[in-house]
């Protein structure tokens, strides 16, 4: 029982609120993905993701399903790892270490965004966009535009989260380099940015599975 005088959850206010924000964000993404699942369950046919997502840059017309998206997945996992390491360095007040790992995290985020930009451009060139779906169902029958609508909406919303995550990390990097957190005496702000960044990785785990794998 909490008797007052100390923080009941043993975390600072900002971090607690970040958790609650992320929980609400999880419901937003969850609603998107469940809407996608419901539509898919309500439709007779669906395009085969291995026929749609089968290219990588400079690969030409090669049939290579899952290759490019697994690269994107690993980029995001590794950038999540460098973020944990930045938080870890923050615990020991190591300014240089935090800056180093933040730079790596930002680079990972930018790499992911570039991959996504390429994929969107490629799909757009194939004729796919909101309201346009050139890919037939796996049995060759006419598909609905729901497929592309959900794909671009959900990966777009996730990409926007990655983009804002990169911005947050850049702001964190500037604050680290200027010594703001050293003066403050703690690197708790990095932990909050880290929570957001891990959440972006977490959402990709679900998006990756729902769109590309199953």
């Amino acid at each position, binding site marked *: 029982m909490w008797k007052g005088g100390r923080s009941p959850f043993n975390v600072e206010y900002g971090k*607690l609120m970040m958790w609650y924000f992320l929980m609400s964000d999880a419901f937003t993404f969850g609603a998107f993905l469940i809407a996608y699942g419901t539509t898919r369950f309500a439709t*007779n046919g669906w395009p085969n993701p291995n026929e749609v997502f089968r290219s990588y840059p400079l690969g030409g017309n090669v049939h290579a399903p899952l290759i490019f998206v697994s690269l994107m997945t*690993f980029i995001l996992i590794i950038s999540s790892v460098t973020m944990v*390491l930045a938080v870890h360095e923050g615990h020991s007040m190591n300014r240089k270490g935090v800056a180093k790992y933040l730079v790596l995290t930002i680079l990972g985020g930018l790499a992911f965004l570039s991959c996504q930009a390429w994929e969107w451009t490629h799909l757009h060139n194939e004729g796919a966009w909101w309201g346009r779906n*050139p890919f037939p169902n796996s049995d060759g029958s*006419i598909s609905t535009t729901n497929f592309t609508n959900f794909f671009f909406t959900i990966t777009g919303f996730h990409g926007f989260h990655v983009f804002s995550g990169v911005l947050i990390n850049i702001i964190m990097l500037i604050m680290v380099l200027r010594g703001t957190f050293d003066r403050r*005496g*703690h690197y708790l702000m990095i932990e909050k940015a880290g929570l957001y960044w891990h*959440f972006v990785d977490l959402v990709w*785990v679900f998006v990756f599975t729902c769109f590309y794998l199953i």
Partner: protein
Amino acid sequence: MDHTLESLAAEQHAGGGKKEIWRVTIILSVFTIIELALGFLLMSVVNDLARHFIKGVIIIFMLAKAFYIVGYFMHLKHEIRNLIMTIVVPLFLFVWFIIAFLSDGNSFKNNKNEWDRNHKERSKEPMPKHEEGTHTLE
């Protein structure tokens, strides 16, 4: 006892440190590779039941990855129990969301196939082929 931010920052070191980070990294990578292997396996499987089974296994690995990211990278496993509960308990709403909405979508499909005379035939029509580079589907 006054709880300053500094003391909070000092207290939040619970957890396995760098060793734990590398352990979780390896677990996440291995799970992703298994998922991908199952995804490749799925391409050659035609049997509906087998496909559903493989998809179920992929989803289990997805949830396991989510557990490791939230528990270790986001550090939730090392927080106070009450905090964990305020985050995790509301998420159980998803169990109902998923069951309710997906079964609703499924029954919509079945009803439509049964009662809308043309629906099933229409959804079997082949998609017209397009020449490479001439995508006019507006």
